[in-house]
């Protein structure tokens, strides 16, 4: 993944309906959500039409536990959160997604990112520390920088299932 500063956007917004439909195509049954400004229109689309069922929760810690309970009972849940939320739930991610080997697919919004900058060039720690944090915990991830990257959702979803662990797709620009 490259570092760059550009006058053209590095990341462009994906229509929320397209992102929501991409999740539906994965067979997701529940989207467990701590609302993320970056993914507002996707959340709106999910809220308007089920499946998947949209479950609002108070914290990302809760979300990881609920994700596990739904997975154990035969469902195909996922999390929709933002970068700050990932930082908030590291211990639970460690215990449940990694140690307990629960498939945990996370769509993580890069809240605060300037779309002209790559994440590592961002002056904001919330943005520039996300990928290093995921790498530190051996959580695989892909950047979703625009509509062309939507197929990467499938790769990370499948990875979470095949490894029985966490995998992330990082939404780089606000959905439109």
């Amino acid at each position, binding site marked *: 993944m490259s570092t760059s500063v550009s006058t053209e956007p590095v990341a462009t917004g994906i229509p929320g309906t397209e992102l929501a439909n991409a999740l539906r195509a994965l067979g997701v049954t*529940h989207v467990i959500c701590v609302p993320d400004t970056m993914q507002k229109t996707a959340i709106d689309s999910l809220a308007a039409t089920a499946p998947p069922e949209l*479950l*609002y*929760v*108070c*914290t990302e*810690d*809760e*979300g*990881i*536990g*609920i*994700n*596990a*309970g*739904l*997975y*154990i*009972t*035969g*469902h195909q*849940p996922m999390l929709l959160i933002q970068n700050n939320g990932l930082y908030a739930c590291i*211990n*639970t991610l*460690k*215990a*449940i997604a990694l*140690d*307990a*080997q*629960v498939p945990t697919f996370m769509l993580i919004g890069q809240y605060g990112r300037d779309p002209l900058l790559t994440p590592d060039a961002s002056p904001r720690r919330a943005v520039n520390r996300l990928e290093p944090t995921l790498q530190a915990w051996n959580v695989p991830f892909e950047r979703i920088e625009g509509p062309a990257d939507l197929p990467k959702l499938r790769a990370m979803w499948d990875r979470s299932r095949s490894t029985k662990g966490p995998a992330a797709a990082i939404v780089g620009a606000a959905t439109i």
Partner: protein
Amino acid sequence: MLKQEAIDLLAKHRNGAISVTTMQTAAPWHLGGHTNAFHLEASACMGSASSLGLGLALGTPDRKVVVLDGDGSLLMQLGSLVTIAGHAPRNLYHFVFANGHYESSGNQPLPGNGKSDFVALARAAGYAVALRCSTAEQLDRALPDVFAREGPALIELVVERDDATPRWAGVPMAEMVRKLRADLGVA
């Protein structure tokens, strides 16, 4: 009441429910032989028992789920009371073993100095049922009625501080996840 009395009574009235334990309830529930089937322990994720229980309850609406939580543990994800009440699983029964201490780490007192009230918190959050049992006799009488009612229910169990919690190596949570899925017939 003694923690062991509460453990024994919950086992007696469990009737096939999925159990979720954590921290102070994990060893006695296991040593009592109650973890052989339909069981999950929230290990190394203090505070997650209620959320795991919610996910299990939403995923299996026709089977009861009993969460054997601790007061210190619940305080770590206290917002889960609101989340549980909001999703309103009728099959979730949330027992909070309240001894006022962080037992596993050496019985340090909980913040709040006993001023907080889990029953009132659950009611305010929107639980369908919220009550407190201070004696084994109260609990034994209450459980049939509790399980006959629709949840979510929170039952605060006032238990004595235990200075001799048995230690055990535990079962890896990954193994419990696989076993519970098998018990439930999930591939």
